[in-house]
C-alpha cells in the first residue's frame, strides 16, 4: 500500500504548491494527478497574479477590491491573509525562476486588471499560469526524492476511518488499470473546478469537479456552489478564453452599433469593472438586440498598440488566428460571456481544513472563501499559491502529530465493484455517456448562467436528477485496462452530476442577486436575509442546506458601483 504523510490529489498550481510546502516541512509527500502535472488547467490562467507589492499600493487596497468584487460574500479574514501574503509569495515565485515581466529598471512590472484600484497584476506575457506551473514542476523534478509523483493516476474515492477521519484514497493507475489504496495522514484535494458541467466553457475537459464531488460524497460541507463565474470575453461556441489582460491593456467592448456600451453600466471603470458586472452588461446588450446576430458583442483590441499586443497578448493573437480566423491586431473579435470559474467549493478554513479531519482542499476545489460571489481577475492564481502553501504546511503539521489509520480494504472493494458495474453494461443498455454530458452542459448553460430565475433553475435541477438516474445505466465501449478513458469519462460524469445538483440547489435557495448569482425574480442584493453562505451537505435526500456567517472584519457592505 503506497503510504505518505501527506497525499495531494491534483497537480495544478494549488496541488504542486501544497506538495512543495509539505515537503519543506520534512514529511513524506505524494502527489497524484489524473493527467501529467503540466497538463493541469492552471495553464489557462493567462493574465497574471495580483499582489500589492508596489510602493504606494497596500494590502488593504487589494483586500478591499477583492471584497467589493466578491459582492461582500467573501470572508474578510481569509481575504486579508491572501492580500497580506501575496507580495512574499510573488517574490518567492520570482526567486524560483518565474520569468515575470520587468519594467525598464529591470524590476517586476505590472499591468492593470478588472476591478482593481491599482495596477498590481504581475505577469509573464499572457502565459502567467503556464509559466508559474512549469516552474513549480521544475521544482518537483528537483525535489523528486522528497515528493513522489503519481502521474496519470485517477482518484475515485476518499477513504475515512472509523472515527470519520480521512486516511487515504482509492486510485486507478490509468496506464494499466490497476486499483490501489493509498494511505495518508493528510489528504489535500486540489483538483480544480467543475467547468465541464457547462457547455461551452473555457475550462479544460479535465475540469469535472472531481475533488468537490469526492469531498461531498465523503460528507464534507460544500459552500456557495451557486457562485459560478461567467467570463466576459470568450469565443462564441467554442468557449475559448480571451484574457482580461486585453481589456487591461486598453481594449474596448462594442455592441453591433459600435457603441462602447460599458459607459452605461460602469461609467468609472468601464471595461475593467468586475467580471459579473461586465458579463451582465454584455448579456443585456445581446438580449436587448444590440448584439450581433450570432449572440455576441465585439472586443476591439486594435486600439492597443500593435507592438504591445505582440509582446503582452501573444497567446490571444494565436487564439484569434487559429480558433476564430481573426487577426486581433486588425479587427475586433466576437465574444460573449462564457462559463469560467467555480467560486464555491469544498468549505475550508484559512489553512485549507475541511470539516473532515485530515481532509484539506485548496485552489478552485476549495471555498475559503476569498472570492465570494465574484472572483477578481488575477486572484485565482494567487488563491492557489497562498492556500495551496498554507494547506501543505498545515497538512504536514497534522501528519507529524498523528499516527494515522490504515484505510479499510472495503473502500477499495466498493470502488472495484463500481467499476465492474460500469464495465458490465451492455451496449444499448442505456444512453451513451457522451449524450448525457451534452444534455447536462446544454441545460446548465441555458438555465444556470448569467441570468437565472426559479423556473429555469428548477427545470435544470429536474433534468440533472433525471440524468443522474440515466447515468446509472449509461454504457461505455472500452472494456480494457490500459488507458481506459471511456471508463474514466463515466466516473467523471458522476462527479459532474453531483456538482450540478449542488449548484442548482444553491442557486434556487439564494433568493437575491449577488455577484455571479443574478436572479431576475429577485434582482436586488438583500443583505438583511442573504449576507450569508449557503452550505450543502450530503444526506439521504441529496444536498441538505444550512447557513454560515460571512466574516466581516473592517469592510462593512456598501452599494457596489464601478
Amino acid at each position, binding site marked *: 500500500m503506497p503510504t505518505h504523510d501527506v497525499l495531494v490529489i491534483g497537480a495544478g498550481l494549488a496541488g504542486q504548491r501544497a506538495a512543495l510546502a509539505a515537503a519543506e516541512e520534512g514529511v513524506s509527500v505524494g502527489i497524484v494527478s489524473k493527467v501529467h502535472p503540466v497538463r493541469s488547467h492552471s495553464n489557462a490562467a493567462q493574465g497574471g497574479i495580483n499582489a500589492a507589492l508596489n510602493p504606494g499600493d497596500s494590502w488593504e487596497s487589494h483586500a478591499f477590491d477583492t471584497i467589493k468584487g466578491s459582492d461582500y460574500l467573501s470572508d474578510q479574514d481569509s481575504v486579508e491573509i491572501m492580500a497580506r501574503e501575496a507580495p512574499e509569495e510573488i517574490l518567492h515565485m520570482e526567486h524560483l525562476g518565474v520569468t515575470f515581466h520587468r519594467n525598464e529598471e529591470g*524590476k517586476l512590472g505590472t499591468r492593470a486588471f478588472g476591478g482593481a484600484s491599482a495596477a498590481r497584476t504581475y505577469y509573464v506575457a499572457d502565459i502567467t499560469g503556464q509559466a508559474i506551473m512549469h516552474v513549480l514542476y521544475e521544482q518537483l523534478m528537483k525535489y523528486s526524492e522528497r515528493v513522489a509523483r503519481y502521474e496519470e493516476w485517477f482518484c475515485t474515492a476518499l477513504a475515512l476511518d472509523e472515527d470519520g477521519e480521512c486516511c487515504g484514497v482509492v486510485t486507478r493507475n490509468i496506464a494499466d488499470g490497476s486499483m490501489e489504496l493509498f494511505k495518508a495522514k493528510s489528504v489535500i484535494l486540489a483538483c480544480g473546478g467543475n467547468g465541464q458541467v457547462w457547455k461551452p466553457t473555457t475550462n479544460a475537459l479535465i475540469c469535472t469537479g472531481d475533488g468537490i464531488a469526492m469531498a461531498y460524497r465523503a460528507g464534507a460541507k460544500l459552500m456557495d456552489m451557486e457562485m459560478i463565474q461567467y467570463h466576459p470575453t470568450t469565443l462564441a461556441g467554442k468557449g475559448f478564453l480571451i484574457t482580461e489582460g486585453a481589456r487591461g491593456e486598453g481594449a474596448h467592448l462594442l455592441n453591433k452599433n459600435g457603441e462602447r456600451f460599458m459607459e452605461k453600466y460602469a461609467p468609472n471603470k468601464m471595461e475593467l469593472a468586475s467580471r459579473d458586472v461586465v458579463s451582465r452588461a454584455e448579456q443585456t446588450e445581446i438580449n436587448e438586440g444590440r448584439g450581433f446576430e450570432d449572440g455576441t458583442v465585439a472586443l476591439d483590441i486594435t486600439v492597443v498598440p500593435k507592438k504591445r499586443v505582440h509582446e503582452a497578448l501573444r497567446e490571444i493573437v494565436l487564439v484569434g488566428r487559429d480558433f476564430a480566423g481573426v487577426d486581433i491586431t486588425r479587427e475586433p473579435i466576437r465574444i460573449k460571456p462564457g462559463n469560467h470559474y467555480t467560486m464555491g467549493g469544498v468549505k475550508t478554513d484559512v489553512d485549507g481544513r475541511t470539516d473532515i479531519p485530515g481532509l484539506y482542499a485548496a485552489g478552485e476545489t476549495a471555498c475559503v472563501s476569498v472570492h465570494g460571489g465574484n472572483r477578481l481577475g488575477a486572484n485565482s492564481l494567487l488563491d492557489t499559491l497562498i492556500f495551496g502553501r498554507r494547506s501543505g504546511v498545515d497538512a504536514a503539521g497534522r501528519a507529524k502529530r498523528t499516527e494515522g489509520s490504515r484505510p479499510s480494504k472495503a473502500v477499495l472493494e466498493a470502488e472495484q465493484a463500481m467499476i465492474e458495474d460500469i464495465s458490465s453494461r451492455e451496449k444499448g443498455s442505456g444512453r451513451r455517456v457522451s449524450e448525457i454530458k451534452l444534455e447536462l452542459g446544454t441545460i446548465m448553460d441555458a438555465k444556470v448562467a448569467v441570468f437565472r430565475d426559479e423556473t429555469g433553475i428548477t427545470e435544470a435541477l429536474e433534468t440533472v436528477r433525471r440524468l443522474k438516474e440515466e447515468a446509472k445505466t449509461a454504457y461505455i465501449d472500452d472494456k480494457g485496462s490500459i488507458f481506459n478513458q471511456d471508463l474514466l469519462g463515466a466516473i467523471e460524469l458522476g462527479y459532474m452530476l453531483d456538482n450540478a445538483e449542488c449548484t442548482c440547489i444553491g442557486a434556487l435557495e439564494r433568493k437575491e442577486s449577488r455577484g455571479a448569482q443574478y436572479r431576475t425574480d429577485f434582482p436586488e442584493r438583500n443583505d438583511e436575509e442573504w449576507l450569508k453562505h449557503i452550505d450543502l451537505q450530503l444526506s439521504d435526500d441529496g444536498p441538505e442546506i444550512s447557513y454560515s456567517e460571512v466574516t466581516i472584519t473592517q469592510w462593512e457592505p456598501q452599494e457596489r458601483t464601478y
Partner: protein
Amino acid sequence: MANYTLKVRRYQPESGEGAYWEEFKVDLDPSLSVLDGLLQAKDRDDGSLSVRCSCRAAICGSCGMKINGQSGLGCKTQIGEAQELANKMAGASAGEEKAVPTEGAEDNTTIVVEPMGNMPVIKDLITDMESTHWTKIRRVTPWLLPHGEAPEREYVVEPESMIDITQSMACIQCGACVSSCLSMEADPDFIGPAALAKAYRFVGDPRDAETKERLHDLAHDPHGIYDCTHCFSCIDACPKGVAPMDQIMRLRRKAGEEGIEDPNAGHAHEMAFVNIIEKKGTLDEAMLVQESYAPGIKGKLKPSKRSIRETIKSLPTILRPLRKRKVKLRQAIPGTHHKLPGDAMDDVKAIYAHAEEHNEEFNLYIKGEDEDFIEPEPDEMTEETMTAEAAAAAESEESQS
C-alpha cells in the same frame, strides 16, 4: 458543416493484434479541429478510441499527434485545413494538376492521423512520453540554479532577458518537436529539441549561476547541442513558436563565445564560412578544413594537435572527389580560389557591415511588429499611465461618487 474521413492509426494493446488503420466519418464545421473530429468519433462511434486531450486550446500540450504525416497538436489543426493538405498531398502523389475538391466533397481523400514519432506507442494515439520526452527533459537539469541567498526583493535583470527566455518558457511540452526530429530518428539518444529549448531557458536566464557548467555539459555530451542537423523540422512542428532549433543555435553560439571547443568544430566551421566569404566573396572550399581547425595565420604557424589530426582525417574526403574527377587539382589547392571583382566585393562588404550593425536575432518576443505602430490614446489605462497614485485618485473619486 462538412463530412470528413479520419484515417486513424490504431493500436489496442490488449487485443493481441498489431497496429491497424480505421476510418471514422465525422461531420463538423471546417473551422473546428482534428481533435474535435476525433472526439466526435469517440463520442458517437467508439469510446475506446484513445487520445490524450484536455484544454482544446493549444495550451496544455496533451494532444500531440501526426496529421497527414506532420507533427503538431490535434486541437490546433483545423480539420478543413487538414483536408486541404491531405487532398493536395494525394493530388501531388497522383501527379494530378487539376484542382482538388475540399469541404466534404465526395471524392475527398482521408485525413491521416497517427501517434507521434520517436516515442513508443501505448494505445492508439497515446505515446509513452515519460521514457523519451520527460527523461530527456530531466537530463538538462531543468531547474534554476542561482548562487547564494535570494535577494530581499526580486532579482533585477534586463527586461529583454526575461522576454527572451519567455520564448522557451512558452513551451507546453507537447512533444511535437521530438516527434518530428530527424536527428533523433538517427540517434535516439539525442537530447533533442524540447529538452535543449528547456536548457536555453536556464542558460539565457541571468539569474542562473551555472551557465558555464550547463554549456560545457551540453556541448561535451556526444548527443548534445552539436547533434542537431539544422533541419528546421522542430520549428515547423512547434505549435507555440518556441522555435527549438533557434534555441539550440543560441546554445551553440553561447558555447562558442564561452570558448568551448565542440567535437565537430561546428562553431569554428561556421566561422570559417563567414571569414572565407568575407575575404573572397564566394566559398573557397579548399580552405574550409584548415580554416575550421587552424584559423588565420596564427592557426597555421602554431597548429594545434587537433588541427593536424583533423586535417589528416579529412584527407580521404578531399582525395575522393579528386580521384572521381569531380574536383580539379587546381581547385583543391588552398588559396587559388578566385576573388570576386571589386564592385561585387563591395556589395559583399556592405552585407557584412549591415549584418554587424543589426547584430540581433529575429525574435518576435523582443522585437514585436512595430510597423504601423499606433499611439495609445491619452485616456487609455496602460501600465505607464496607470501609476499607483493615479489609481488611488481614481479610487477616491469613485468612492465619492
